[in-house]
């Protein structure tokens, strides 16, 4: 069968960087040209497959940031530079970048939720003039869990970047650092014109729910907010059924959804 959509291709690990005790960022040699927010199915023969967001990309590489949580991600964490892994994709709908042009964009990311939006930020970091403004809110459990520290530092030179942690420890938080939930930052945000503002919210389900509620309270409309949903996925192709919610397949119609639609999905 020449048209087998389940067949992955082999790709080399160009580099591997440790982010935290359980997260690593890999650069993989392959040319996918994804839309920010799309994902790939990553696999290791004999172990299994799992969906991973593309955290960034160049014309001939993709960046994946993977947290060690179970069988496949554990085995991926043992791979080193020059090893190979297997990929298929990119899959799903990414962020509609054209919708953000000329707007004030607020990006609120909780934990690994920063991965799927990182390439959105890079896109606008390269073209700051195309936005009216960019505010980045990044929340983590503790300072030890902060991802993409160098990037957060460098974005903070051009944009309003605020990092918050649920609890402190000995590791410093990049400035301006806060302690508390991401939702607590929203009442004090400068939102000059709610109608000209758009928001992206990505993180654990509870974080997304409450962050969206705060943004609505600040005068944004539901359809001005985009979220990226996480569901159990097996195929990434709209066949296996695991990710279906109502008549929506998160792997095909998402993972990025406008909040006006996402809010109505009944699991």
């Amino acid at each position, binding site marked *: 069968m020449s048209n087998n*959509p389940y067949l992955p291709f082999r790709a080399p690990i160009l580099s591997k960087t440790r982010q935290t005790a359980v997260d690593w960022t890999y650069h993989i040699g392959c040319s996918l040209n994804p839309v920010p927010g799309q994902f790939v199915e990553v696999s290791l023969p004999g172990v299994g497959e799992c969906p991973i967001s593309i955290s960034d990309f160049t014309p001939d590489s993709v960046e994946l940031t993977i947290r060690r949580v179970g069988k496949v991600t554990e085995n991926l964490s043992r791979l080193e530079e020059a090893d190979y892994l297997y990929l298929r994709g990119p899959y799903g709908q990414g962020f509609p970048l054209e919708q953000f042009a000329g707007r004030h964009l607020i990006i609120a990311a909780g934990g690994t939720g920063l991965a799927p939006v990182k390439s959105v930020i890079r896109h606008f970091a390269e073209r700051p003039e195309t936005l009216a403004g960019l505010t980045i809110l990044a929340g983590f459990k503790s300072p030890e869990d902060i991802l993409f520290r160098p990037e957060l530092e460098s974005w903070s030179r051009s944009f309003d970047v605020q990092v918050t942690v649920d609890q402190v420890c000995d590791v410093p938080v990049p400035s301006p650092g806060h302690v508390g939930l991401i939702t607590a930052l929203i009442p004090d945000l400068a939102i000059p014109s709610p109608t000209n503002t758009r928001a992206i919210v990505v993180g654990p389900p509870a974080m997304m729910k409450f962050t969206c509620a705060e943004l609505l309270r600040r005068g944004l409309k539901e359809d001005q907010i985009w979220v990226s949903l996480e569901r*159990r996925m097996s195929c990434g192709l709209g066949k296996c*059924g695991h990710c279906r919610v109502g008549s929506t397949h998160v792997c095909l119609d998402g993972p990025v959804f406008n909040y006006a639609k996402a809010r109505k999905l009944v699991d």
Partner: protein
Amino acid sequence: MGSLIEAAALDELLRLLKPKYRIYAPVRLPGKGRFSDTDLIGYAEINRSRDIVFNERSYFSPKEILFPVNQTLFYFTESQWREPETDDREILVFLRSCDLEAVKRLDQALLHNGPYPDSYYQEARAKVKFVLMECQEEFEGCFCASMGTNESRDYAFSIRPENGAYLCDVREDLEELFGRLGKPREHEPAFVREHKNPVRLPDNPEAFSEHPFWREYSERCIACGRCNVVCPTCSCFSLQDIFYDDNPKVGERRRVWAGCQIDGFADLAGGHSYRRDKGERMRYKVLHKIYHFKEHFGVNLCVGCGRCDYACPEYISFSRCVNKLAELEDSTKAEANRKLGDTSAAVEVKKDVK
């Protein structure tokens, strides 16, 4: 073309088809039934007409012929993939209208949903021809006519047992064989038109997503997944890798059936899960079968075969659940109308006072 074919002649016909076709039909599997000393009707390859069970509904549907319970997608060595060899023969399946309609639902789910067809299903599907087993009357708990799946005509020939022989309506390239082995006889297949216990569909069951009646299933359902397994239109699966003990560098990737009623179907890493409650799973399944699939594909997913009701060890009835939703909708509408009546009556009264 109508044909009357004697049992011996049909056996001859099957024999002549054998080199070109794998022929599947519902057969009796002795001792495999739900209760001790009972038989189970399931699908298997057949050689002769008397193996075919006509007078009972099959416990399992024919979906496993196109979409096996456990299917190797490819074998791998350290750096290479190899797809399994496939059987070149075509496939002939004896099935009923509801199950033939169910195949069209599988086509939607596995071929047409998403940008790429499922290549494994597609390959098997391209080889299949169907023999329609006539239903002259319903089996207990069927409701195909309620679902509009009682009459399906995409068959190579239809078949009805008649006094030791078979009445057929023959199409396509088999006319020549039937012409030789059978006798011409006008025949139009019969279809079931009504049911003892018809099922009524609600217009908008989503409105009752939060209704407390789903909670009954939270207690009752034991998440065994039999309803998913026996359903001719359940097509969910999980991909799974295995490696061989004697050589961990060699293994295979498989797909195995999965079911939304079973624990783990919507689990995420890190302990999060959707629909832990079995009542929520029941709602998810029922709404998919009678509402959500239709939103997408224009036809309902449930074909009214009645197998899930029969298979459930906890006596949970899908058809009663659907009827219950329709009743809830009726009473909600009646209530709304009554209120509307009250307000217009109140307006009348006001007018009178003036």
